[in-house]
């Protein structure tokens, strides 16, 4: 954990993205987001609906809808800016160097193609290997993600598999070409609690065996301990705090992070006799069409001050591994 001198893999610099859908007010989905991922690192992005985390995930591989524009910023991957790459070069990155696992595995698989063939398609798109070799690799992959009968699963269709099995197939697709980075958007949200643990341990194992870096996006902080190295907390399109997992859980700085960490402790308390109320965050999620300055979290913040209403907080480095954007800590 400490002092790993690994190479930088991906760097997002001051990324700002605005959605301008026809017949609607424009929405600033991402504001000045900056992030760094090193080789074999697991970075978690923690945030709730509408905070821009899925936008960030899709933006890295430029999979946003046509009405999304990046106003400023760059995404540097192994030296090249992904935002200015040609479509042809980008296609070589997708699925090969960087993979994306989307939210609902039931919806992300081709319903009329055998799952084995779908994994083979990814191999076919990037590697020049023959059909027999492809088949062999797919069966290897299926075994690697935990299937005991890879042959049977190869010929199955998505609707014949359970939710957990589908998620494993999607993971197999993502790691087929041994990418350096896998972006997992809410990998466990649609699963039962028991399956969540299995999938997380599978991802951990993949990281250990193949040295793959992960960018895990979720609203549930309880999956991070023991898995993520660093966490960035997002609210209303911006990163409000970033640090090691230990920093975030042991000493959360931003009021929003503090509230989330308190909520995640729902698994820690043992049963009392009375039913316990949950610690809440007042107010509604923020309105992303708002364009005037001022801290986005201010309406719901328990520690809000006058300065929070008029100006945006700048990022403060609390200690080398821990940054936060909050007036409580200066500037």
């Amino acid at each position: 954990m400490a002092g790993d001198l690994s190479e930088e893999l991906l760097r997002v610099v001051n990324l700002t993205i605005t959605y301008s859908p026809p017949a609607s007010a424009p929405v600033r989905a991402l504001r000045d987001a900056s992030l760094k991922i090193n080789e074999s690192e697991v970075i978690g992005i923690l945030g709730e609906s509408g905070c821009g985390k899925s936008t960030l995930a899709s933006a890295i591989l430029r999979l946003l809808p046509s009405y999304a524009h990046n106003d400023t910023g760059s995404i540097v991957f192994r030296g090249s800016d992904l935002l200015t790459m040609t479509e042809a070069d980008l296609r070589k990155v997708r699925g090969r160097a960087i993979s994306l696992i989307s939210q609902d595995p039931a919806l992300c698989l081709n319903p009329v193609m055998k799952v084995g063939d779908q994994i083979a398609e990814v191999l076919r798109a990037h590697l020049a290997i023959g059909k027999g070799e492809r088949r062999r690799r797919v069966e290897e992959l299926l075994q690697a993600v935990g299937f005991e009968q890879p042959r049977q699963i190869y010929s199955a269709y998505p609707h014949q598999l359970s939710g957990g099995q589908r998620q494993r197939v999607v993971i197999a697709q993502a790691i087929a070409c041994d990418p350096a980075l896998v972006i997992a958007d809410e990998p466990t949200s649609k699963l039962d609690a028991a399956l969540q643990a299995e999938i997380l341990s599978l991802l951990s194992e993949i990281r250990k065996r193949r040295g793959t870096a992960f960018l895990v996006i979720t609203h549930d902080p309880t999956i991070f301990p023991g898995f993520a190295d660093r966490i960035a907390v997002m609210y209303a399109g911006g990163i409000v705090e970033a640090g090691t997992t230990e920093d975030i859980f042991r000493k959360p700085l931003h009021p929003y992070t503090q509230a989330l960490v308190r909520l995640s402790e729902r698994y820690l308390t043992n049963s009392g006799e009375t039913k316990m109320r949950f610690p809440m965050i007042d107010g509604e999620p923020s309105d992303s069409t708002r364009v005037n300055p001022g801290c986005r979290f201010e309406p719901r913040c328990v520690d809000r001050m006058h300065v929070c209403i008029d100006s945006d907080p700048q990022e403060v480095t609390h200690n080398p591994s821990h940054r936060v954007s909050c007036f409580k800590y200066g500037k």
Partner: protein
Amino acid sequence: MGSDARVAKSAQPFLRVRSLTKRYVRGGVLQKRIHVDAVRGIDLEIPACKTLALVGSSGSGKSTVARCVTRLERPDAGEIWVGGTDIAGLANRALLTFRAAIQMICQDAVTSMNPRFSAAETVEEPLLIQRRGAAKQCRQSALEIMSEVGVSADWANRSVMEFSGGQRQRLAIARALVLQPKLLVLDEALSGLDLSTEAEIINLLLDVQAAHSLTYLFISHDLPLMARLADTIAVMCNGTIVEQGPKSQLLSNPSHPETKSLLLPAKIFQKKYAEMLGVSG
């Protein structure tokens, strides 16, 4: 009815299910009929104003139990005692009074709402269907309940599609409360919500339960979460209840492997959390 009977009645559980069984049949005229037991011999009891959590993984049959208790489906065998009546075998006409007394809230409320309705129309609909008064009265009652659950009055005429996930769940609760039910069946009503929204809805449900003296039947796959809300917990696996009892007992001393596996995520988190922060946590 003398005072003896009244005392006996208050000691009676509000909902009592005995030997509930539901089968599904596949196949028809030209195919061999295969019987699948979704749910077999279910026994459970909920005292008035208490909460029972029915937990299990996907496919364990817990949603089937929910649908049978609310009589959206007719059980093949068994009894469902609500107050003093067995509703398991009642015909649709006789069920009308019970439909108001037992309401259900599902996961992802939006799929159970007409996208063309406004918030107020959604909430007043049950009153209009059951003919509980003139249109104006129904609208008034709906608005009252909506403000109780925290939906602001200026949003009353907005389409339900404009609401966020948590707000829609509030509307679903309002709609369920408007008929003044006695039992609320919550089928994965907290799944898929953000943590903070989940917390809000849980707090709302606790408040509402106290204010309206409601009995809750909670269906979920998240046992550790249910432990904070329920009085008793029943664990289902493959169509039967494998362990049942007061929550403190189940949490401190689980006996069935299924219970243990449902408690696993919490245990793993506790362990990892402790590891991460050093033993002192």
